[in-house]
């Protein structure tokens, strides 16, 4: 009866350090959940197994943050990507000049990676955030 969280944040971070984008696949409906949750994002099922995502997806939207939170240095691009397995993830688009970070990038394929969180504020040990590079 005791529930055990299947893929914790710390395990997800360890995956990123090893260049693996981990998620959960539902034994019930087959949907992938990434980043992880307590249940399947699609059907709410609790029979989940850890699986590595392909790390490839499609850029769905973005912004260029020019006024940043305390502890961050703007400008930088935040984007949302739909992974080929279905889940959406948020991260930073890198490697593209800002003046090319415009509506044209919506729909482009990207490769997902990660980097240490870019902040001067204290954060959790091992905290990483996702990065996207146009393929």
């Amino acid at each position: 009866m005791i529930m055990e969280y299947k893929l914790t944040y710390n395990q997800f971070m360890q995956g990123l350090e090893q260049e693996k984008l981990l998620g959960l696949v539902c034994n019930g409906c087959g949907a992938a959940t990434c980043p992880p949750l307590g249940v399947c994002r699609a059907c709410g099922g609790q029979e989940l197994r850890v699986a590595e995502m392909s790390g490839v997806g499609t850029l769905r939207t973005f912004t260029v943050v020019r006024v940043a939170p305390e502890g961050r240095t703007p400008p930088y691009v935040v984007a949302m990507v739909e992974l080929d397995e279905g889940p959406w993830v948020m991260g930073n688009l890198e490697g593209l000049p800002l003046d090319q970070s415009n509506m044209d990038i919506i729909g482009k394929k990207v490769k997902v990676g990660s980097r240490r969180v870019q902040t001067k504020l204290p954060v959790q040990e091992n905290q990483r955030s996702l990065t996207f590079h146009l393929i």
Partner: protein
Amino acid sequence: MREVAVLGVAMTKFGVSDKTNLEMFAEAGLEAISKSSLNPKDIQALFFGNCLGDFEEGQLHMAPFAHAELGLPTGAPATRFESACATATVAIRHAALLVGAGIYDVVLAGGTERAAGMGTPLATRTFAMACQAHHESSAGITFPGVFAMAAHMYAHKYGIALSELKRHMAEVAVKNHYHGSLNPKAHFRKPITVDTVLNSMMVADPLQLFDCCPFSDGAAALVLAEANKARELVEKPVFIAGTGQASAGSLYLQRDLTRIKAREEASRQAFSQAGIGPQDVQVVELHDCFTIAEILALEAMGFYGFGSAYKSASSRETYLGGKLVVNPSGGLKAKGHPIGATGAAQVTEIVEQLRGECGERQVNGARVGMVDTLGGDFGTVCNIILRV
């Protein structure tokens, strides 16, 4: 359930204040109680909203201190609610539910926030804490950034040139600043033009400074009571016809940012409870934290079809005198956005509109009004429908 009415309503001037959260709330709360022909000793519970008192002033657990500022009875519990920008609306909804249920007869609800006092870098950081910390705030997303991503998605989804969408968005700001110019309590009282918006600094592409609401200080409060008691106490009670509240997870789960599912559900609950539809509403105070936000709200609540509300301000349909007046107070955009107080100020405006007390910005013939408040990155939406 018993019928519930709003009695006295009050708000401080929104803007930059040198008063503390408790002082601002005391002013609004005592005024609301006095306008209800009541004394603090008559209040049976306090539903109190505040988001970031711990960062603003080092103050957690603010509700009992607010309770003491007003001299409320020990037996009248003070409870803090926090639902990001929807905080006060959620507090008011819970107050209305418990008065309707007969747990209390007369209560005070409202909120206070000292957001301007934090300054832009800290305020930007702490507001972004309402995004999912581990998987989204970690990418440096900001609140303007969330709505900026929604705007890009809107332009892409509906095939609207970004420059055209931005012009229509700017018209939303122009409208709300015009309305705000008629509101003595508004943070900004200066009319602006489309050029003001399009020439302002870029905050998060495509949102410019004048697409964004300000960080404001302020408080607002109102008294709720069982309807018969309300009729005894005040000349024009305003009745709560329906409420709704719904929730959604982080953006990575919401995916289509042009469709705010929690709002579609919350407004459906509120309309269903009120037994009316969007066509029956004459005035709405909705969550225009950014220009695109007003457009998304009008669609999710059913006032416009999806992909069509972007012209609502340019067509002047949502101006004072239009067929549905949207944000006659100036909205978050011009009236200001002290996040823990915002919902109570929205209810204050609708109540005063329905009572015909709004002077220059009065919506003629308003009989049904609606409040819409969104918390965080679309994680909470709370709606309240009011009627005379």
